[in-house]
């Protein structure tokens, strides 16, 4: 694992308290969302990112508001870190019309173009070529904006991801590839799925690639900020692997599915390096308590906003399918 230069959070543009607040917000958001799964208000279930919050927090702090993010099915943390409103995101998960994507993306595919999140695809690894295309177009337009694609260790065996490395490196596209290696592709352990190494895949295309501690938000922030700066400066793509762990199952269905692919001792080991605890230790106690209280108030309001929001009208089920307003035929219509 690569040691990062001792860049403080402040030097990279975000205070330890701000990072802690983002981690806390994501953690408590996910816990509230799980409650809403249990109550039936979020029908899809969710892919919780609890345990992985430091990656989202560090990345979010390293990006500008006008930078673009392509998230994935475990993406709530990414959207929150990029600036999505918690109430509108929770409404999205609950399928309400006030959601960031009017409830049409749901938990699996939320997008929030107002904060630069252009999508979350569940086709593992296939968000990367989308991000490469976005970043290429941003560079063609003469901007210094960058795009970032976030995926898991399961994605590194997708051909489309490797094709994306090639295009990005050939054309020096300002895109960052971020792998959140949480050691499992659903139930498949990474060591039984990946020949060679994850970073070597990117390095083979001439893309700078390194592995960092993904349980430390300040490490994530420093590594990402440095890579973003190089990409903005025209130095092309970079690949960052963050070692992390999800404390929950792949999806909330695991709470009742009775799967046994992880050793409880392994889970306990990773819980000992909880990114929220790590970052809380860098924030004065009084400030931490104040942040915790503010996050609860924010999330109380978010839950209320989501649950008070109107459900969609079934008569609008065919809306938004086409940008031109084309309404498809429905069965037995006319």
């Amino acid at each position, binding site marked *: 694992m690569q040691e990062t230069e001792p860049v403080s959070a402040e030097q990279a543009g975000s205070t330890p308290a701000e990072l802690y607040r983002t981690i806390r917000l994501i953690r408590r958001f996910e816990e509230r969302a799980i409650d809403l799964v249990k109550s039936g208000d979020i029908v899809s279930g969710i892919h919780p990112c609890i345990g992985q919050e430091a990656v989202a927090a560090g990345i979010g702090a390293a990006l500008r508001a006008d930078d673009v993010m392509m998230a994935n099915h475990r993406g709530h943390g990414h959207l929150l870190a990029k600036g999505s409103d918690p109430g509108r995101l929770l409404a999205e998960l609950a399928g309400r019309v006030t959601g960031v994507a009017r409830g049409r*993306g749901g938990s699996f595919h939320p997008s929030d173009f107002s904060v630069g999140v252009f999508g979350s695809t569940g086709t593992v690894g296939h968000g990367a070529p989308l991000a490469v295309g976005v970043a290429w177009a941003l560079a063609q337009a003469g901007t210094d904006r960058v795009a970032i694609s976030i995926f898991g260790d399961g994605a590194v065996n997708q051909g489309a991801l490797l094709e994306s490395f090639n295009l990005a490196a050939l054309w020096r596209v300002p895109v960052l590839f971020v792998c959140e290696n949480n050691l499992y592709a659903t139930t498949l352990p990474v060591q039984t799925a990946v020949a060679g190494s994850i970073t070597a895949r990117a390095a083979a295309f001439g893309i700078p690639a390194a592995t960092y501690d993904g349980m430390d938000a300040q490490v994530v922030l420093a590594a990402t900020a440095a890579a973003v700066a190089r990409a903005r400066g025209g130095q092309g793509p970079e690949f960052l692997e963050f070692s992390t762990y999800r404390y929950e199952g792949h999806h909330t269905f695991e709470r009742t599915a009775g799967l046994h692919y992880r050793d409880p001792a392994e889970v306990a080991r990773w819980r000992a390096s909880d990114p929220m605890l790590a970052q809380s230790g860098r924030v004065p106690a009084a400030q931490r308590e104040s942040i915790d209280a503010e996050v609860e108030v924010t999330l109380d309001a978010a839950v209320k906003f989501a649950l008070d929001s109107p459900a969609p009208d079934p008569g609008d089920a065919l809306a938004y399918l086409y940008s031109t307003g084309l309404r498809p035929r429905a069965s037995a219509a006319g």
Partner: protein
Amino acid sequence: MPKLSYLRAINRALGDEMERDPAVFVMGEDIRQALTNTTIGLLDRFGEQRVVETPLSEQAFTNFATGAALAGRRPVVEYQIPFLLLLVIEQIANQANKVALMSGGQARVPVTYLLPAAGWRPGWGAQHSDQPYSVFAHFGVKTVLPATPTDAYGLLAGAIRDDDPVVVFAPIAAHGLRENIAPADLVPAPLGVGRIHRAGTDVTVVATGHLVQDALAVADELAGEISVEVFDPRTIYPFDWAGLAASLDKTGRLVVIDDSNLFCGLGAEILATAAEQMRLVAPPKRVTRPDSAVLGCVPELDLALQPSRGQLATAVRKVAHGTG
């Protein structure tokens, strides 16, 4: 007046749209050399930043185009061979075509997928001869199938200007067509609007792509015996149902000639919708490829599997004399 060829029409539409709108660019394999003839001269006019030559990475560059569209561009992606579209059904049907929906209308994906060599290529074997437009229509991807040089220009320009993903199938068998039309008379065509190539009163023949010429030949052959109306929907999806209904109001009799496979092909959809919702006074018929047809590399065998003028003439006669 100059003779306009089908591929020249495509080339002209690309050039005109790139000239008109700097957001438009073309990408694909071997396009700098204009291997398919569609991009002749574009590299010199617009440079390599707008004539983007790609490695053989169809899945990545198809999603790349979607990403570029999300950032404000209007890509035209060329695929040399029909089966390449099968490699990117996920990227087109499950990614690009769902962005508008999944974003709740926040974003649009104005990408055009151009297949300049659709359908049978004599002798080139089983993997070069598919005609998968019904597949994309099934997924609700806008799909056009121009029959003539004028429509090739119009529908490609219309597709590029459309705010949704559109697949443009240009059948190889139509490439030989030439029309007398002045460049100034070429205009974008609206998607979803059909065209009556020949008016008639007894039987409506729905024909698409290169089969329009076959339908017109059969209509000529049967003239004096049966008055055939040749209706070309031009767009496979969204289909011009109103145009078909208007024709059937007149004739009440329907034959479809369609280069799809029989099972779940475009012809099946047209017959089903006509039977459900339109005026028919006799059972309709369709002339298509067989179920699961795979054309091979021997022209005699391949031609035996493709919809023919003889089959169409027989079907038209049966429908003309049939009763409900």
